Every structure is written in C-alpha cells, then in structure tokens.
C-alpha cells in the first residue's frame, strides 16, 4: 500500500514535517518496496488560509491509503475522511521511521483532528 508522509525534505532520511497543510512537501511511499516519489506542496505554503483543505485534496489525488503526519486540523481531517484516507497523527523522526512504525502497528489511526484550525 502507499502512504503519504509530510516531509521537510525530499528523501526517506528527511525529517517528518509535523505540519500537514503547510508541510514543506510530501513523500508518497510504498510500504513494501519503500520506493517513493515527491509530491510538491508549494501552493499551500503561500495560501493565507485553506492550506489543510488543499493538502487534503492533494493527498486524495495521490491515491494514498493513509496520511502519516504530526498534526492534523479540522478541515484537513474532514477532507481526508471524505476521501476515505486513514489519518495517522503523532508521527515524528525521519520519514522512514514513520513508515516503519506505521507498518509495525506502532502508530494509531486518528479518529478526530488533534489541533485547532489556524486562523490568521
């Protein structure tokens, strides 16, 4: 299966970005082969509001089964739910660590957003 991880860099060794909507970029990782591709998030970094919604849409377009990130706000969570994507929050360390922990069942599925939205 493929998971989308919010990342501060473009390799599996990069640090996971705790922000979902305003993540530096995303890595779409195959949990079996560990092959991955980079998914840009440029547009969202510059949005005044609504980054979570757009990031959720980006995630839906990749076909990922799950999103691994640090925190997820209410709108992003709502979009990911609508897209049928599993949301995993509380991930940290390197991207590769988050993927391994997810595979080993060490990370739990979020049932609700874990942070408030960011109004300016």
């Amino acid at each position, binding site marked *: 299966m493929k998971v989308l991880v919010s990342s501060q860099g473009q390799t599996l060794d990069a640090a996971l970005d705790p922000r979902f909507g305003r993540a530096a970029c995303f890595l779409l990782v195959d949990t079996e082969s560990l092959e991955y591709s980079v998914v840009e998030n440029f547009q969202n970094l510059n*949005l005044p*509001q*609504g980054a979570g*919604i*757009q990031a*959720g*849409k980006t995630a*839906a377009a990749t076909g990922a089964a799950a999103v691994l990130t640090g925190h997820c706000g209410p*709108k992003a969570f*709502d*979009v990911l739910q*609508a*897209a*049928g994507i599993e949301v995993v929050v509380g991930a940290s360390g390197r991207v590769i660590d988050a993927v391994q922990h997810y595979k080993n069942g060490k990370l739990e599925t979020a049932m609700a957003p874990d942070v408030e939205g960011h*109004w*300016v």
Partner: protein
Amino acid sequence: MKIAIASGKGGTGKTTLAVNLAASAPMPICLLDCDVEEPNAHLFIQTERIQRYPEGVFVPVIDTDRCTLCGKCETICRFSALVIIGKRLLAYPEMCHACLGCMRICPEEAISPGERILGDVVSATFGTHQLIWGEMRVGEAMSPPLIEAVQRMAPDDRSLLLDAPPGTSCPMIAAIRDCDFVVLVTEPTPFGLHDLSLAVETARHLKIPCGIVVNRAEKGNTQIQDYASREKIPLLLEIPFKRSYAESYSRGEKLIDTDPALKKAFTGLWEIILKRGQEIRRAS
C-alpha cells in the same frame, strides 16, 4: 465629507481622537466606529435610541441532486470554500469571501445563496450627532463585509467621521478607501513611527490625503515631527502626555470635558479638516 481616523499601530488613540473630535463638531455629524472586532467609541458616549440590525454575508448552499461534480465552482474559488473529493462536493462556508463566483459559474444552478451571520450593525444618537458601529460575531474571522455594512448604514446628508481598525491590512483598507481625508494618529515611539510610515504608504497608495496627530506627545521627543516634515505631511495636532488625560480616559470620560484647552484644540482641528475638504472639492 468623509474623514477617517486611522493608525498603523494599535492603541495610539484613534478612538480617543474620534470621540473627542465628534463631540467638538461644529455641525451634526455621524461617527462610524469601524473597528468591528472591538468597537469602543460607544463606551465614551451617552447614546440614545439604540437600534440593532443583524448583518449576514453570502455563502454557497449546494443542491447535491443538481450538482454534476464538474468542478467549475472549485476552480473559481480562490479560498478553498468548495472542494470536490471523490464523488462529493464539500463546502467550507467559513472560508467563503462572498464573491458569488461559484453561484454564477455553475451551469446546473446547483448553488443557491445562503447566509452566514457576521454580527450586528448598531445605530444610536448622541445630541444632534449619530453613532453607528459594528459588533462582529464571536468566532467570525472576516471583518471587511461588516465594516462595509456599517458604512452603508451612514446617512448621506452629513459629514462622516470614521474610526478605522488598526493596522494596514484588509479591515483598515475597507474602512478608509472611500474617505476624502485620513487623520493618522501615532505616538512618539519607534514602533509608533514605524507603523505610521506603513499607514502613510497605504494612504498614498489609495491616493487619500493625510495628516498626522501625535498623541502622548513629550517635549524634546521630535521623531514624529521630524518624519512629518521630511515626508511633507501636515502635523495637525499634538496631544500632550498627561496623567490627567489617562485618568479621564479610564473613567470613560472625554478629554475635552477634562481640559478646556483641548476643547479649543479640537475645534481648531475641525477648521483645518474642513478647510482641507474645501480644497479637495475645489481641486476635483
């Protein structure tokens, strides 16, 4: 004539100036408190005949039976208020900036107008003057539509004095952009000067003439005066830094009732502003 009282920095004395200037007006005027996130002019004014009008703004309502998920509304919306995920069009009304683009572009007429409550516009009288202010709903993030609603309620047969919200972003611009003259209130501190220069840039960009009032002015501190002469902006008034003024403010009183010298100064400020208004009218 429509005169705005604005500042870059918050807490420099916009409302103090607005309330005292309104009470010193030589003719009946209407004071518009456009700081809808924290209106406080009415705290210093004995108002009568208070009337409240709830104010709302357009939000899209989707008819899912008609929607074909063509995505045109999603593309036109710059604020992600409408998003298609899978086979569903999701609406986020709190993101909507009420441009109505989605409703106009929808080929299926699947979007109809709904309403999000922004807050109240409140109208009252004091003496021969009128006071109108906005009170934004707690939790609402977008103030410009309510600021515009306050201005729509203003009478068109008298001069308007407008107390603007602080800063130089959308709310401040929504308040000052139709004004004939902007009075910029500042304090003689580095922060006051910095934000004053931002407000001056904003007024210049909007092509609105401005003048400066220094509040809490101290002898020997001339940074604002130096800036004003450098930029060739008229210095309209200096309100000295006095404990008695702060005490009067804390009791909810007007400064002109505390110090007769100030009453005279505010009358003088009206003369300058009205003369400036005549010049503008002659020029246009």
